[in-house]
């Protein structure tokens, strides 16, 4: 397997924003090694699994061999005298098969235990790794994608062990039993099982190679079908408004036909599963060979029966290994995606020894440029200076990089060229904890945890008293709506609780900020008030929040822009105008336009 070259960097857990005392180390150099390093922590369980698998297959093969012996006993000339021996033999057979069940159980449970433990540990490792990543990482990494990895891919690693590895190890033992035991009847009887095994793997290889592109096509065509289907129903108003029902149906039939054709082709390929034919050929040839040996008096009929029974054991691997091997492959692919995520650069560290003084709140940008890796620059040559306590409004169209600009201040991102200074000190030289503790960012999408309103407000200051929380809520003009809920501050938010409007969320976030009293407040404001009374409250809340601290507001509100100490007008990553309202009304045409 060519896993080794895909993962760029090796174990790089040293630089991170968050860490827990590591309880164990895993090898992150390749997916296989990584999975095995997890398995190694449970080596004794793995050992019992392998022993269980071997004993299961070995005891399974006892059955046909004993049946062969029994045949000899009951067909012997003095058969009537053999009933005692037959009883003993049957007893041994029964006991061996009960033990076999026990061994199989040990195999199953051992693999299951490793699988479940590994799933838990892998998810834990992934989660800690995610917590340690910088915000640059998280803002580039879509939540949906992370979720897919934390759920599906982690699951696939579980399935790698059970049923994947369980079935592979299990069926490999079934494959080798005829090879080991057939020679006890006659050395030449080894030929059929060995040839079968070789041909079987070749056929399997060919089959899987042929199937892979087809299953990809099935998945892709289904994705296409499903996406458009969901859109055509979600956007039904648009479809009907444009009178496009007929063309949507035509498109659906086209997509569905594409999917159907892919499914049919997959079915046709699967129907032609060659190992099945190989198995019956092996059985026929084995039978022929054994009967010829019998004809020549080299083995007896009981041995023919025993040998045929051993060959019949090959059917288990023939049927199961098909999906067992693809399970192993999917498990490895899942592990590869997980590693790819965990091994991605962290590029920020906690800078524990950095600058650590009370912050005043002066902010200066000196020729700052920024862009994501291998992308065009997002911000180019930005310079401005803000005195402590001033309010700065940032305006511009979508895509003008307003949000990226403010995120350089608390090192969510790091500037590529130029310097971002807070109190005259480059943000890179600040202790990260101190820097972030003093800067509060209220994002456009305000995230609230599925906890109570009180806990959400106190999120940044876990020990806050109820009085402090209420005072903060009042200052943020949130008190009023909170008290309209039956449970007031204990109202649970989120999926199983109350959902809040954008404006209400924003005021909770402001309350959060009041409680932590940051020196610099950054507010990405995209709420819109439906009515003037709400607007009045928002105005008051923001005004109170901005008082006494340096405040950056990305806003669409003309009133916020109008009264800011400094207005930055952005366009496509550049600062195209800057100054007070009065200055800009004289100098900037586009600025005048929005106030007309």
């Amino acid at each position, binding site marked *: 397997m060519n896993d080794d070259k895909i993962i760029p960097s090796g174990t790089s857990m040293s630089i991170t924003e968050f860490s827990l005392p590591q309880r164990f180390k895993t090898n992150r150099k390749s997916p296989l090694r990584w999975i095995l390093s997890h398995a190694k922590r449970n080596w004794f369980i793995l050992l019992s699994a392998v022993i269980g698998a071997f004993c299961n297959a070995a005891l399974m093969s006892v059955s046909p061999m004993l049946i062969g012996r029994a045949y000899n006993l*009951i067909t012997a000339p003095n058969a009537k005298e053999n009933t005692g021996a037959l009883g003993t033999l049957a007893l041994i057979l029964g006991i061996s098969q009960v033990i076999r069940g026990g061994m199989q159980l040990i195999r199953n449970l051992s693999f299951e235990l490793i699988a479940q433990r590994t799933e838990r540990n892998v998810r834990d490792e992934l989660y800690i790794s995610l917590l340690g990543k910088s915000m640059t990482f998280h803002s580039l990494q879509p939540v949906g994608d992370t979720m897919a990895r934390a759920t599906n891919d982690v699951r696939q690693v579980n399935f790698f062990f059970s049923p994947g590895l369980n079935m592979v190890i299990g069926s490999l033992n079934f494959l080798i039993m005829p090879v080991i035991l057939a020679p006890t009847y006659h050395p030449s009887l080894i030929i059929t099982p060995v040839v079968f095994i070789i041909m079987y793997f070749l056929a399997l290889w060919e089959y899987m190679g042929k199937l892979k592109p087809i299953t990809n096509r099935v998945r892709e065509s289904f994705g296409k079908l499903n996406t458009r289907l969901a859109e055509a129903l979600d956007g039904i108003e648009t479809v009907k*408004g444009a009178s496009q029902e007929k063309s949507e149906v035509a498109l659906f039939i086209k997509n569905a036909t594409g999917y159907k054709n892919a499914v049919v082709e997959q079915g046709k390929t699967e129907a032609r599963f060659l190992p099945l034919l190989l198995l019956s050929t092996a059985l026929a040839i084995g039978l022929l060979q054994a009967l010829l040996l019998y004809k020549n008096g080299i083995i007896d009929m009981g041995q023919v029966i025993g040998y045929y029974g051993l060959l019949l054991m090959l059917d288990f691997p023939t049927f199961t290994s098909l999906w067992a091997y693809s399970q192993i492959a999917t498990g490895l692919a899942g592990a590869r995606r997980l590693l790819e995520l965990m091994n991605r650069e962290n590029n920020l560290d906690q800078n524990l020894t950095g600058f650590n003084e009370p912050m005043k709140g002066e902010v200066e940008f000196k020729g700052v440029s920024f862009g994501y890796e291998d992308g065009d620059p997002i911000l180019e040559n930005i310079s401005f200076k803000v005195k402590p306590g001033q309010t700065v409004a940032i305006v511009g169209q979508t895509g003008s990089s307003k949000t990226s600009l403010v995120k350089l201040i608390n090192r969510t991102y790091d500037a590529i060229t130029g310097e971002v200074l807070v109190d005259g000190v480059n943000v890179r030289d600040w202790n990260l904890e101190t820097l972030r503790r003093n800067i509060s960012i209220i994002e456009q999408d305000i995230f609230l945890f599925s906890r109570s309103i009180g806990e959400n407000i106190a999120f940044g200051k876990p020990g806050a008293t109820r009085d402090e929380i209420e005072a903060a809520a009042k200052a943020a003009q949130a008190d009023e709506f909170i008290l309209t809920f039956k449970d007031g501050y204990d109202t649970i938010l989120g999926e199983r609780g109350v959902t809040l409007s954008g404006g209400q969320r924003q005021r909770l976030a402001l309350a959060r900020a009041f409680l932590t009293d940051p020196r610099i407040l950054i507010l990405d404001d995209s709420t819109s008030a439906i009515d003037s009374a709400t607007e009045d409250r928002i105005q008051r809340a923001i005004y109170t929040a901005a008082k006494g601290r340096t405040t950056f507001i990305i806003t669409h509100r003309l009133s916020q822009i109008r009264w800011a100490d400094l207005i930055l007008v952005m366009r496509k990553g550049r600062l195209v105008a800057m100054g007070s309202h009065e200055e800009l009304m004289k100098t900037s045409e586009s600025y005048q336009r929005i106030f007309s």
Partner: protein
Amino acid sequence: MGFFEGLDAEKYDRKYQDRDLVKRILHYFKPERGKIILVSVMTILISLASATSVMIISKAVDWLKNDPKLSGIILVSSLAFGIGFFNWVANWIGRRTMVQATANVVMKLASDGFQAAENHDLSFYDEYSSGRIVSRITTDTQDFGQLISVITDVASQLLEVVILGVVLVGIEWRLSLMVFVIMPVVFVIGILFRQLARKATQQGMRAMANVNSTIKETISGISVAKNFRQEKSIYDAFNEANTRSYQVNWRRGVVLGLIFPLLNALAGVATAVMVYVGGLSVTSAIVTAGSWYLFLLSLDRFLFPVMNISAFWSSIQNGLSASERVFALIDAEPAVVQTDNRPVVDLKGQIDFQNVCFYYKEDEGVLENLTLHIKPRENLAIVGHTGAGKSSVAKLIARFYEFQSGSILIDGKDIRTFDLAEYRKHLGFVSQTPFLFSDTVLENIRYTRQNATEAEITALAKQIGDGEWLETLPEGLHTEVGERGSRLSMGQRQLVSLMRVLVQHPEIFILDEATASIDPFTEWQIQQALNLILERSTSILIAHRLSTVKSADRIIVMEQGKVIEEGNHMGLLENGGHYAMLYNTYFRHQSLEYVEKAREMVESER
């Protein structure tokens, strides 16, 4: 048959009579009957051959025991190989035919389901989530298609068991009884196991869902956690859920891991008993040694089909209730019904509501005896509190819903007599949350008129703010908008949906204005686009922005489904009536005057 119960049921679901359901199902299978017959024939042949194969091997033991002739040996081996080869070919033909038949049935049913869904009116979509409709069209139709393979799989195994059973009874009935006795035991184990496994799996899935939602929440909120340095606290929440899931899923694993060892041990004991008892029958010359061997070989073949049969009935139920869900979707009655399909020619855009009554639910009247006259080319703004019936007026004109009494006339003709598809081509509709398809900006703009050229659209785009908005898109008109337009800002999405109307050039334009906040630069561009449309269409504007109400020729104020005031902006404001109050509630803060006074207001209060 009414198998569906619980979570997935919707109000439009119905119970079909067994006979109707069967008739309906046969309708879908009929075109495939040739294929289904072929599959059945192959299935029967495979069962026969498999049973024969076992019998030949065991008989051979008797034949060749005392007289191992070369010809006999070759005959037996060739038969074994021949049957194996025949089975493989029959299986190949059967399976590929089955896949084709299944795919055709699924495709037909899904297309019918989708077509029905597209024809349902908006009241249907208000009531039922589109996600569930999607799953009826994709998942349920596939479950239905699986019926073919479920039935043939079980039928073939059952057939083999029956054939072997008959043969065994023919040889010796007492030994046969021993084989048969194991069947109910396995059947009961199968059923118990399925119950246990289902419960454990449900718990496992719940614990897993809990872990996933914990991860989702904390990863979505990671910036907040990092901002306040609370990583440890969210880790603890995660760790708890993860550990819990491990415990529950391990328990599930134990349950699932038990069944095969148990069955194998059981089969082993049965084999041992058969070896002994059968062996005694051989020594007493009741049966031959070959027959004894046949009984042993048959044991295994009885065991696992029985396991499958215990799962069979629930698979059938699953497929049938899936079909019922799709049929219910297809059969749901449409609410909007046209009485005629007259062509729409030279529409001027005059609209009349005469005593129109309309409600979504019977006891909640929305419009009551509404009478309204809108002149061609008139720009009419509708204002009022939430629930006053503003959107309903717009949606009735678009004929998205059926009204209960009165009449709506377009150019003096009853709206119910038009060819609906053609009528809507003359109608531009922009909803409050503009919907874009995941395609390019260009394709989205020409959604209303597929033959519009790129040059034409570029020229139109340039008329809005000198086309500056196109420059902000990374690849201009060819920018992919992402799923549901997620890669564009709300303002850009509104611009695209207005562009759609500009390209369509409709006689009647309906705008349900968005309330989302848009940056002042884009806002200005939207205003420009709007002005272009207003110039040439009869417009019904459900206004949320001050600039829109100001630009309307006439404003009507609605309350509880009635028009309570009308006039233009300045006149109504001076009147000091309902409009003046609404202005004070909804529009005051949008005025430049407010902007100037905002600072004063907040400072004075402190």
